[in-house]
């Protein structure tokens, strides 16, 4: 872990979480390690069942890890109950207290800490202004719209100024327009408050838009961690390449030098390997559809098998002589079905670790 420990807010070290026993044993997290930096918008991204919510709950304190350590700002918290951790959560269903007003909900955390009333009231006002809900302070929470409830949940979690804010798919219940607004809102809040945000989602677009860094998860493991651009352009694992955006995956042979691959049709291209990985022989390469284009001087040949138009452009499916298929994103006029085409490839091809 080559992380500067002064920069690290959360350190999960070899964390495993299992449920059940014997035949019904479920391994929700399998030896997971990750370091989340201070003042970072960090996203856990993956399909349902990948363990992202479990990891979040371990950080929050709703579950105990079966094995491994969780450190917060240098101190072990893995065994502490949630009310002893300076971490707050925004729940997927908001979990607003129905028998309390908006104001009391927001002030609840400070109230439980025994803060003097003046301080609590001040914090409530500050939070209401932050999420622009001043006019709804006295309302009962079941009279609010979904978007409003969401903002109250946020304000409630931020009011005690926690070191870390955990967000469990908080936008999934909102409609598209509201969701996009809230994404911008959340980003703004994070940079204004300087609190570390750990955000869980299965929506890869959302993750790419909002995050400083993304951890892509599947089947209880973290597959790749990096900034959005890196995850997108240099996926190290097949799953990551497949999960984010559209991808073409081709078989190739890696040269001994490790700097060149030979595609099935005999085409040789420069190779880009994932960091620190040594591979040889048969590998897979990943190419984004938008990184390919039709060019009479293109190195790759093929026959158009299908054209799917979607307004901004078309996805052109091309059959290669090797038997493989690729999809090329084409902005303008697409070639016709059955046409013989030549495709221009990117400068170097990304090799996958699996």
């Amino acid at each position: 872990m080559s992380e500067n420990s002064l920069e690290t807010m959360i350190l999960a070290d070899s964390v495993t979480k299992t449920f059940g026993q014997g035949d019904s044993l479920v391994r929700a997290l399998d030896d997971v390690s990750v370091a989340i930096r201070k003042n970072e918008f960090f996203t856990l991204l993956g399909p349902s069942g990948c363990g992202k919510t479990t990891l979040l709950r371990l950080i929050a304190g709703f579950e105990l890890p079966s094995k491994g350590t969780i450190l917060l700002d240098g101190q072990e918290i893995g065994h502490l109950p949630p009310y002893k951790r300076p971490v707050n959560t925004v729940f997927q269903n908001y979990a607003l207290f129905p028998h309390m007003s908006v104001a009391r909900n927001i002030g609840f955390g400070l109230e439980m800490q025994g803060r003097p009333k003046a301080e609590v009231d001040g914090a409530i006002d500050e939070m209401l202004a932050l999420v622009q809900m001043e006019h709804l302070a006295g309302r009962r929470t079941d009279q609010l719209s979904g978007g409003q409830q969401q903002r109250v949940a946020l304000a409630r979690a931020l009011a005690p100024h926690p070191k870390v804010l955990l967000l469990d798919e908080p936008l999934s219940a909102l409609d598209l327009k509201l969701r996009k607004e809230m994404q911008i809102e959340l980003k703004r809040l994070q940079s204004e408050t300087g609190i570390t945000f750990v955000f869980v989602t299965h929506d890869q677009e959302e993750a790419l838009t909002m995050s400083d860094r993304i951890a892509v998860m599947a089947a209880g493991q973290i597959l790749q961690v990096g900034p959005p651009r890196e995850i997108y352009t240099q996926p190290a694992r097949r799953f990551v390449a497949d999960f984010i955006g559209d991808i073409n995956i081709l078989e190739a042979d890696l040269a001994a030098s490790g700097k060149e691959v030979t595609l099935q049709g005999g085409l040789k291209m420069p190779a880009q390997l994932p960091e620190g990985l040594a591979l040889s022989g048969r590998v897979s390469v990943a190419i984004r559809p938008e990184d390919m284009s039709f060019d009479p001087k293109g190195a790759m040949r093929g026959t158009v098998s299908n054209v799917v138009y979607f307004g901004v452009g078309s996805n052109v499916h091309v059959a290669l002589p090797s038997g493989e298929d690729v999809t090329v994103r084409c902005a303008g006029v697409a070639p016709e079905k059955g046409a013989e085409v030549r495709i221009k490839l990117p400068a170097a091809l990304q090799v996958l670790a699996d």
Partner: protein
Amino acid sequence: MVALPEPQSQPKRGAEANAANLAVARKAIEGGARRRRWQLLSPSMIVIGVFGLFPLTITLIYSFLSPGNFGGVTWEFTTDAYVQFLFERDIFDDTLSFSTTYLSIYGRSIGLAFGATVGALLIGFPMAYFIASKPPEQRNLWLFLITLPFWTNLLIRTYAILLIIRDEGIINVSLQGMGLIDAPLGMLYTDGAVFLGLIYSYLPFMVLPLYASLEKLDFKLVEAAYDLYATRFQVLRHIIVPMAKPGIVAGCILVFIPGLGAYITPELLGGGKELMIGNLIALQFGGSRNWPFGSAAALILMVVVMLSLIVYVRYAGKERAHG
């Protein structure tokens, strides 16, 4: 801002210490939960256990003792109570002969209770179905109306029936007044009155579980049946009734068992001439002053109740197996 607890003293750092911390935390949580649960449950358990199960044991003991002179028991062991149940002792030559006196009381009670159950089912099922077919807003009102009599005092309700059906009651007086009959119909103090009274008392107990079952019914299945050319009656018989099975069983149990042990209804409407088990038992603790016999009778009733429960549960299970 929450202050984190001080880190453990130096020698305890490391993976082992962490695992130890986790184990301690886990045991505290799980053990605490179990302990808390039984602490919370214990008052109810103790109270009901002590007052429910323990007394039954005492009753069992009492049933093997001798009656006291002014009620109560004298602590002499005897099986007289149980013998009395089946046999009559000739006062002269002390021989025992088989007697059906008490058996017939039990038999009548079982018959009445069973009849009342069937009656309640026949009346209650359409009622429950009707409520379930109403739009949700109206259902609450109907449930309130049907439940209200249940909460009113059984004694008062039965008294009200008595007022109406007795010879000077409103039914007889009006019918005589209209010239339809010459003499009052002797409705009171008959088996029929008790039968009616039982259904009247326990009808809500049948309707509510039936309703609970029918409410869950997916009407799409009904529509599918109609789509496949079923008549209303066939739909009722093959779709609705089988799916309401759990409710039917629950309702029958809730009517039959209290019906077996009914006291007020036969007391008021049967007039002490037609005894049910409940009256018989109560009598032993009142005028007859034969506590051991009363205890024995009560225990025999419990046995009948247990057997009926087993029969019902097996019936419910069997039907589910056949589907």
